[in-house]
């Protein structure tokens, strides 16, 4: 047997197997024509085998069979061309008919002996004389081969679908191999006697089969890489073996050639076994050639994919993943979109390269967007170009489509965890302008498949971290992160130069607000102020809740005068947003600057705080700079002098209004004020609180302006209905006074001066220490004066009787401690102050 016959025989077997696989699926036109191509190839291999098998065959037999082989060659080309037309959704066309006609003609001519003139073996090699048919055949077949290539290249260029491009690329590779090995080698003198042309056809058929059945799995580059790798390794192995044989034969000239070949086979076997590392080295080298500059990035991305499990921070994930992706895939940008907690929209949280301006305006998908729905349901990437081709996305709004088109993104990937969409990765278009390769997609697929759970972990970690640094009530950074950030800013400023400013903000009279409206309302105010702060500052500024009702804002790269502008904007925003129906919320702000006010953190905070205090002293609702702190106090005195008479004049005018309403209570407010101030002094309260108590005492009954005179002057006991306006007078008083900013401090005492120690009073039913001290003092002073003054419904009690009554009610109606203090003031003759009070009171009443 001729060993060269093995090649067409192996081809024959392989084609037979392929045919068996393809025929059952030959319902579709493409598959059917592929089967016909395989069948033609089968004929070619089989006839070639018949031709080469027997070197002793007669010349006539050889001429006859060789004629069949020659006719089979154009048949293979035409059927291949026909198959590719079908693959491109084109009808056979006139070309196919001409091609088949040519085959028929050649077959007839072959049978009649007009193609092969002579055929014979020299050794195992077949020689034949087919002149000029080799040239005629080449001329006829070249247009078909050229058209085939053009069809494939056109399809490859037109297609944007990576899978389709991948499949077409397989076909182009197969075609190239077929052309190089099968149609050029017969014309080279060295190979023309060998049946190597079958190898080309065989490889082509195998590649097509692979592409048809598994086209979505491998990229042509991958195939080319693998192919090159194995060819290189095979070359090396064959080379080594050949060298061994040649060297062996030259050294061991006496040994039979069989021994040398056996020894070579043994060595080759060892080489093949140890070739694995060689394959790896060759693969790396070829990868570098293929991927050129993106190689290192691809490696980085793959490494990142391996170590991804350790990443817990979203910032770190974005920092590691996004630049690597841009570089590895040679794309213009990447964006990471996550769901916004408040609106539920998917917004851009990270972008690489970073975008100037507002990130969230670039892309924003509401949770009911069909795009979000689609990404949630599917696990596939969404190519922006394909959006209009997907029926489920026909509900996209025009603006959403414009957003997508203007985003510069080419594809969106869903990130999922436990089947739920948790994020979207947007990849920019290829920098080269072409479509993504199949390997690009595989690379991203590999990462996105793992990254979902990582993102969820990172989000949880982020939430935990945020909670640690965030004030839960306002959502701003907390005190701890304020100090951290101050240190970071100082470190940054020290290293790179530059400056930053600090605003300290305090809500004016917040304690009073809490006392009047309760702590829940106070919390609302804190939340609102937090929101206004964020909306009034620049995006690079950072807001903190420093503690209580005090806030801080760090303004990187801002000078003192710039910071003053921001502070004023904040102050005005807060003031303007206050509801007209509630007590006005104003703020006092102090502004400091690093490094002008000191290089230490404490120095800057201290001066900003001092400026804030100065703003409070100057009448609140204003901004002071750190430089104001060093100014002499004359201006302050002026302000205070200006402010105080104005406030007092208001108070006296209001008190006079109440007293004028009720002739019986004329002078009552002033007397209550005297008693209350005496108690407050005995308590050693600050001057500010004493002033508050004084004013509150003067105005405690201001709400009675809303009580009908008939009730106020009624001599008989009041009915339940009549008690209602009486009981409402503290609240009405607050309602009247809350607009006077200077009197806001008095409001808690006025509101609660009818609360009872045991909780049975009104309007809030507070008890014990829950009642502000000012109100408790006012209650005792008010009751004492009421008992000792004439009223329509009773005669005045004596001092002793009144004191006795106070003591009697201590612990139920009055705070026993306050009663005790008051009794000490009013009763013991040795207490000079008490006498003063009594004397003054008597004078007044008289």
């Amino acid at each position, binding site marked *: 047997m001729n060993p060269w016959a093995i090649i067409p025989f192996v081809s024959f077997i392989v084609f037979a197997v392929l045919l068996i696989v393809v025929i059952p699926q030959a319902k579709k036109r493409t598959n059917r024509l592929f089967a016909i191509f395989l069948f033609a190839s089968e004929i070619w291999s089989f006839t070639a085998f018949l031709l080469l098998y027997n070197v002793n065959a007669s010349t006539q037999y050889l001429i006859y069979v060789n004629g069949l082989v020659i006719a089979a060659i154009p048949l293979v080309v035409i059927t291949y061309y026909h198959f590719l037309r079908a693959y491109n959704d084109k009808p056979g066309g006139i070309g196919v008919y001409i091609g088949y006609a040519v085959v028929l003609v050649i077959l007839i001519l072959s049978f009649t002996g007009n193609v092969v003139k002579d055929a014979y073996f020299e050794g195992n090699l077949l020689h034949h004389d087919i002149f000029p048919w080799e040239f005629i055949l080449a001329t006829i077949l070249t247009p078909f081969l050229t058209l085939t290539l053009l069809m494939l290249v056109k*399809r490859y260029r037109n297609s944007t679908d990576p899978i389709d491009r991948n499949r077409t690329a397989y076909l182009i590779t197969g075609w190239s191999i077929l052309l190089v090995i099968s149609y050029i080698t017969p014309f080279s003198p060295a190979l023309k006697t060998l049946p190597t042309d079958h190898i080309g056809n065989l490889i082509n058929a195998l590649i097509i089969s692979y592409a048809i059945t598994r086209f979505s799995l491998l990229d042509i580059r991958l195939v080319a890489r693998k192919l090159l790798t194995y060819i290189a390794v095979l070359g090396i192995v064959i080379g080594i073996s050949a060298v061994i044989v040649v060297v062996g034969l030259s050294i061991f000239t006496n040994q039979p050639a069989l021994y040398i070949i056996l020894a070579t086979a043994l060595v080759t076997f060892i080489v093949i076994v140890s070739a694995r590392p060689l394959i790896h080295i060759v693969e790396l080298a070829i990868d570098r050639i293929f991927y050129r500059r993106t190689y290192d990035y691809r490696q980085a991305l793959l490494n990142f994919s391996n170590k991804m499990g350790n990443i817990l921070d979203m910032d770190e994930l974005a920092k590691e993943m996004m630049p690597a992706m841009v570089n590895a895939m040679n794309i213009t940008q990447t964006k990471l979109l996550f769901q916004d907690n408040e609106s539920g929209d998917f917004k851009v949280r990270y972008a690489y390269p970073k975008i100037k301006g507002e990130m969230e305006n670039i892309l924003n998908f509401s949770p009911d967007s069909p795009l979000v729905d689609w990404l949630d349901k599917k696990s596939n990437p969404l190519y922006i170009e394909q959006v209009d081709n997907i029926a489920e996305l*026909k509900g996209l709004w025009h603006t959403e489509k414009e957003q997508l088109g203007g985003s510069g993104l080419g594809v969106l990937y869903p990130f999922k965890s436990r089947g739920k969409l948790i994020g979207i990765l947007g990849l920019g278009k290829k920098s080269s302008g072409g479509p993504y390769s199949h390997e690009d997609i595989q690379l991203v697929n590999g990462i996105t498949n793992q990254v979902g759970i990582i993102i969820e972990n990172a989000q949880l970690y982020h939430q935990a971290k945020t909670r640690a640094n965030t004030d839960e009530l306002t959502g701003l950074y907390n005190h701890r992160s304020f100090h951290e950030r101050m240190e970071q800013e100082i470190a940054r400023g020290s290293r790179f130069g530059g400056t930053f400013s600090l605003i300290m903000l305090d809500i004016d009279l917040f304690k009073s607000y809490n006392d009047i409206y309760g702590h829940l309302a106070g919390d609302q105010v804190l939340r609102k102020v937090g929101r206004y702060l964020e909306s009034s500052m620049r995006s690079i500024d950072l807001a903190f809740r420093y503690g209580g009702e005090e806030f801080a804002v760090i303004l990187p790269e801002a000078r003192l005068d710039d910071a003053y502008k921001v502070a004023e904007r904040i102050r005005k925003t807060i003031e303007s947003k206050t509801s007209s129906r509630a007590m006005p919320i104003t703020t006092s702000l102090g502004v400091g600057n690093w490094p002008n006010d000191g290089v230490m953190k404490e120095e800057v905070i201290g001066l900003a705080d001092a400026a804030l205090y100065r703003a409070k002293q100057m009448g609140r609702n204003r901004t002071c700079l750190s430089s104001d702190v060093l100014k002499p106090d004359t201006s302050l005195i002026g302000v205070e002098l200006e402010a105080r008479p104005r406030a007092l004049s208001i108070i006296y005018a209001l008190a006079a209004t109440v007293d004028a309403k009720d002739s019986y209570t004329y002078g009552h407010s002033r007397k209550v004020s005297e008693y209350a101030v005496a108690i407050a002094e005995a308590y050693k309260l600050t001057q500010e609180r004493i002033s508050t108590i004084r004013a509150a005492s003067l105005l405690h009954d201001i709400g009675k302006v809303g009580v009908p005179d008939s009730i106020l002057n009624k001599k008989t006991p009041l009915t339940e209905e009549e008690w209602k306006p009486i009981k409402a007078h503290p609240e009405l008083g607050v309602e009247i006074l809350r607009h006077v900013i200077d009197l806001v401090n008095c409001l808690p005492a006025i509101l609660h001066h009818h609360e009872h120690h045991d909780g049975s009073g009104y309007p809030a039913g507070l008890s014990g220490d829950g009642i502000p001290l000012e109100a408790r003092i006012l209650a005792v002073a008010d009751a004492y004066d009421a008992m000792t003054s004439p009223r329509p419904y009773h005669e005045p009690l004596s001092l002793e009787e009144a004191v006795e009554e106070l003591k009697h009610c201590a612990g139920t109606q009055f705070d026993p401690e306050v009663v005790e203090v008051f009794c000490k003031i009013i009763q013991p003759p040795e207490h000079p102050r008490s006498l003063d009070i009594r004397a003054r009171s008597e004078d007044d009443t008289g």
Partner: protein
Amino acid sequence: MRVIVLKIYRIAKMKEIKMSVEVELFQKGRYQELWQRCCGFIDLSIEDFMKIQKRLMMEQIEMLGKCELGRMIMNGSRPESIEEFRETVPLTTYEDYAPYLLKRRMDVLPRKPILWQCTSGKSGEYSLRWAPVTARQLDEIEQIIFAMMFFSSCTEKGVINLRKNDKVLYGMAPPPYTTGTMTRVFPHELFTLLPPIEEAEVISFEERIQRGFEMALDQGLDINIALSSITVAIGERFSKRGEGKTSIKSLLKKPRAALRLAKGIVKSKLARRPMLPRDLWNLKGLITFGIDGYVYKEKIKEMWGRYPLDFYGCTEAVLIAVQTWDYQGLTFIPNLNFLEFIPEKESIRSRQDKNYQPTTLLLDELKPGNYELVISSLHGGPFIRYRLGHLVKVISLRNEKLDIDIPQVTFLTRVDDQIDIAGFTRLSEKVIWKAIENTGIYYEDWIVRKEVKDKPILHLYIEPKENGYLTAEHVSSLVHEELKKLDVPYAELESFTDLKPIEVTLLPENAFKAYKMKQKAAGADLVHLKPEHINPPDNVIDFLVNKAKKIKIKAEEEKVEA
């Protein structure tokens, strides 16, 4: 020379810019993508269909809130959900829009229109009803035009059998009529139109059909897109009773046409029947439009060798539903109009009591039955909860055969075009037409109206083609029998009351041609050249019965008519 090259390059570039994505995909042979893009909606689940509807409606509400027309119709409200929209916005009719649309005012509309289209108006008030079409609507319509062409030619899902330069006979009415809007978006550059668009634009509609037919004989024909009546008329040219034989002879001067005719003659002779269009052309696709599509369905199949693909549209909604390749029910299009349905009983009640606001259902709430359709335009169109006055029949909730999960419908009739017979039944134009057609009599045209003498009767006025051996009584009993077969309540009427409520008057020869001539002479629009089939006014009947026979019809006129 360089200047010329640059100019050519620029023109080529401009064309490239103008080319729609659909055309580009078709030219590049990316058929799978193209199918997904244009026909993918038939694979939607009913839930996804409704999501598209509701979402696009919310976009439309946003637009309406910003325009004068929208604020006027919605009484200044800005509904925040579909439920609120349906609860607060009243149903409308053309009268609500007439003050703006008849003047073609663009400043009041949600989006500036790219063109205006029209149809016949309300007699005595306005002759034409105008409706604007926006650029975005037109883009969506283009996709549906492609879908219709693919459906008309395919045998299985996803297979596109049309190819570039296929020859198309385009017999739809020209702009500004609705089918003319379709002409605007028809992908001329992909196909060989018979006659070419430049030629077609300068000749009359009738000449266009004539010229297209001649060219099809010469060059071949792959796709026929035409009004049902045109499709039938062309088919009848070949029949023995057709009247166009002389013009066919003149075509013999062209060898390719002669060859094609020879082939046709041989085929018809072998089949022992008159020559039919299918003997000459092996059509890839056939699309027809018009209420008579249903009536002539079998006839067209017999003539042309394939069923016509029907679609449902109108001036205000452009396209509403299309048939698929099983040629049965029509499938609604999700993204052109927001659809609501008034159950037939509610519809009747609301027409009897003008103050009654009927409740509407959405597509996913339907059950098989008859409904009046209410549409709201999407993509910036003007109509809001607009009663089209069309009655549709939901024949099934899904298409089992083609696995389409969207309710399947057929167009029944215009609500006003129904004749109530003694309260027993309401006969539509479609049913009466089908009955006449089923009798097998050859006729020119017909009209019908309800007349009350001593009892209510259906009075049919018909112009027979072979007047001589037909009598009114004969036609009457034939139509009566066919109506009984088609409409069960009609049959019951006779069995219960022994009434035969039909009377026939045979119109004189050429009565309808005379009417058409009269209308042409009066400068009437294309849509007013023929009388309405149902309940035409007295003067029309008077003309057809009494005056038409006095008018002489020119020979040329007859030829064109054929």
